[in-house]
């Protein structure tokens, strides 16, 4: 068994742009905005960065292929820049590249930057289209909401939940995230909503209405990581370290083999179990202080509570309705507004989640600061329920 990366890597600095419909900015401006905050926070010079990982998803819009857009935008000192892409989990991939580089000893200081400029498409929602030359010739021509909405049909069938009860629970998921997002000056959507707003919104993909879907946003986020020793040497206190970072990818069994029932994320369960083991967590419901879920859709968040062992199997609806995940609940979820309200610039989202956990752990989260969080977790998901990439990252105060 590999020894893992627990406490081998410390976060030196982070930054995040304002998310939203950034009509005035291109991807380059968003990168600079996030990076400037991160390097200021780290207190280092750009020449001290040994290598960088850069995440973007859509190359048809945005900045195109390769690592050059980051290197050129930041005028990086001719260091290695690797572009990574793993659907909506791309941000976690960039972070993983930087963290592993430091953990291996290959780099002293590494940079992860994620960006997505989505609002250059000319329409709402994410660009569609299936990759490759074969898949579009046979696979259903679905949208993201249509793919994730299917969780609801299977979850209802499995747990014998009627449509209204599920609708109300996922409405509460969104009401909670809007309440949190309203307090976050960098969030895309900053209006609180009521349960009635969510229930009565226009239908997007049965049973998901408009308020069950996350924002489609422009934005960038950045992280600079190093070893705990270097962080201390640079005079850092209150250091946040990486406790675990795990990815699990579908291998086609959910979509091609009659084992999966359609109501949960097979990969999230595996990634979470591995991450808890790496971090030494054996009672997640009691030990995790707060988390950022990949709430691309309200139903995704609901079923993921169970996949991450925070709610018991079939128990997420009760926990949600009891306020367990609200800002004043036992495990606040999406305290920054989540994908739902902070927004979802795809390549940046995984790093944005870590940004909030980092701020909370350092006590710098302003009017949304939680009392005394010690363990923060991020869950970053790419793909669709039947075929996906699940990334789970756990961060906490360095022991």
């Amino acid at each position, binding site marked *: 068994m590999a020894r893992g990366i627990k406490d081998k890597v410390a976060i030196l600095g982070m930054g995040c742009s304002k998310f939203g419909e950034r009509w005035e900015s291109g991807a380059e401006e968003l990168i600079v905005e996030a990076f400037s905050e991160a390097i200021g926070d780290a207190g280092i010079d750009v020449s001290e960065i040994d290598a960088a990982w850069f995440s973007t998803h859509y190359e048809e819009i945005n900045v195109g292929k390769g690592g050059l857009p980051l290197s050129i935008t930041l005028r990086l000192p001719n260091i290695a820049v690797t572009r990574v892409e793993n659907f909506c989990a791309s941000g976690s991939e960039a972070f993983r590249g930087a963290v592993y580089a430091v953990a291996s000893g290959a780099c002293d200081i590494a940079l992860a930057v994620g960006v997505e400029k989505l609002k250059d498409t000319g329409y709402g929602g994410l660009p569609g289209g299936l990759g490759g030359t074969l898949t579009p010739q046979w696979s259903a021509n*679905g949208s993201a909401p*249509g793919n994730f*909405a299917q969780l609801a049909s299977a979850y209802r*069938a499995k747990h014998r939940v009627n449509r209204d009860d599920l609708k109300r629970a996922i409405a509460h998921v969104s009401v909670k995230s809007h309440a949190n997002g309203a307090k976050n000056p960098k969030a895309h959507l900053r209006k609180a909503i009521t349960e009635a707003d969510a229930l009565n919104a226009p239908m997007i993909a049965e049973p998901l209405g408009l308020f069950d879907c996350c924002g489609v946003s422009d934005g960038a986020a950045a992280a600079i990581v190093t070893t705990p020793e270097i962080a201390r040497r640079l005079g850092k206190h209150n250091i946040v370290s990486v406790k675990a970072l795990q990815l699990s990818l579908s291998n086609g*069994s959910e979509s091609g*083999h009659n084992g999966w029932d359609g109501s949960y994320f097979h990969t999230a369960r595996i990634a979470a179990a591995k991450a808890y083991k790496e971090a030494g967590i054996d009672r997640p419901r009691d030990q995790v202080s707060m988390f950022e879920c990949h709430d691309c859709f309200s139903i995704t968040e609901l079923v993921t509570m169970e996949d991450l062992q925070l709610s018991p199997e079939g128990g997420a609806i009760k926990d949600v309705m009891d306020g367990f995940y609200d800002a004043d609940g036992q495990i606040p979820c999406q305290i920054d507004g989540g994908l739902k309200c902070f927004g979802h610039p795809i390549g940046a989202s995984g790093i944005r989640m870590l940004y909030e956990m980092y701020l909370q752990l350092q006590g710098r989260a302003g009017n949304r600061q939680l009392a005394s969080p010690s363990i923060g977790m991020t869950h970053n998901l790419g793909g669709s329920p039947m075929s996906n990439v699940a990334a789970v990252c756990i961060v906490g105060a360095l022991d």
Partner: protein
Amino acid sequence: MVGITGYGVYLPRLRLARAAIVDAHVWADPGLRSKAKGERTMCNWDEDSVTMGVEAARRLPHFDVPIGEQPSRALYFASTTAPFADRQNAAIVSTALSFPEDLATVDIGASQRAGTSALIQALAAVRGGTFEDAIVIASDKRRTRAASAGELAFGDGAAALRVGCDGVIATLRSVHTASVDFIDHFRGSAEEFDYGWEERWIRDEGLAKIVPPAVAKALAKAGTTAADVAHFIMPSTIARAVDGIAKTIGVPGKAVRDNLGEQCGETGVAHPLVMLAHALENHVRVGDIIVVVGFGQGCDVIVLEAMPALADHPKNGGVNAALANRQAETNYQKFLAFNDLIALEKGMRAERDDYKTALTVTYRRRDMLLGLVGGRCTKCGTLQFPRADVCVNPQCRATHTQEPHGFRDASAKVLTWSADYLTYTADPPSHYGMITFDEGGRFMTDFTDVNVGDVEVGMAVHLVFRIKSIDHQRGFVRYFWKAVPARIAHA
């Protein structure tokens, strides 16, 4: 003895009320008011003459069981509305039906008698011994201008007949063809719509003068007389024209068979075959003489005699079942939209269908894409779609163990679904979801012929051959299989 050994008919489920068409146009043409009776078959947006032809062939009894150890087989596809002008449509149909590649495939078109002409060619080829077995598919989805006579009179549909020497239900007595360049209507190669001449002229100078002598010659070749004809099968959209012809020839008035105008409309080249199937199913008794006429640049006449095997022919794939599988449609606007007869705002998301199709991939995976052929792992037995080099069963993962396995006719159920208003489809919301096959295998696919509220987890579905998407920019139609509720499918 050569003859017809089986029939199968497909009519689209949607039935557009003629009153809905008339209501839209009567402001400009008050004369239409009298034509508001009945309904016509109407393709869903994802149906064309190829998809209907495949579905008609699937309704032929045992259509995929070849005759003999080394079958010698032909497939004729007749249509004036084939989606491809240069890519053989019959080959698309045969691949969709997973026929072996040792097969003669032929497209026949360019005249409204293409269906009967294809049947004559098939009968001749089997009688002559060139082939042991032939399948004739006639299918049409005729494009008409809004407010045209054809829009009201036509329907969409397909019929398939099997021709052979064993198990003949209607034996061939004779054929006769008259070839006359009589232009009741025409459509230039590059034109979208027909251009037609006056009905009275067509009736008096065309039908009345070309058909009777041809029928008389066919009957003489058969050694029978007009008075002995029990079933006179001839489509015409001109009221009572066929009754007049029957009278001229001396065929008893009661032998003139229903042209299904009230419930279906005239289905182009398919229609003589649709009417024949309807007669065989409902009216024909053993020993009856049947005359089938196809009119267009002359006429084809086929004289048949019903045989005892007719009694054993299954009833579930004929016209009655096709007519019974019906959904009323009263929204004429939907007909215009499905047939691309109005410039509709489709939104930017529709642009994603206009991608270039990698023909190399389409060819490599043709059994998968057109025939819905997946794999069966010979090591663990797991069925899977698509077929892959490595078995999908997490407990197996064997490499290079899969043999082809067809999923087309397998029973399946809905595992997950949604009705999506965001994704572009010509018929929103887009229904799709994961279906699982009872014997193993699953994939996510589009649903078609469903309405909001129809789909639920656990619902049994059948698979049907449909248009997946259309590359309008390059004029390429992509086909695949979609799920329909089993309760409305009768494949």
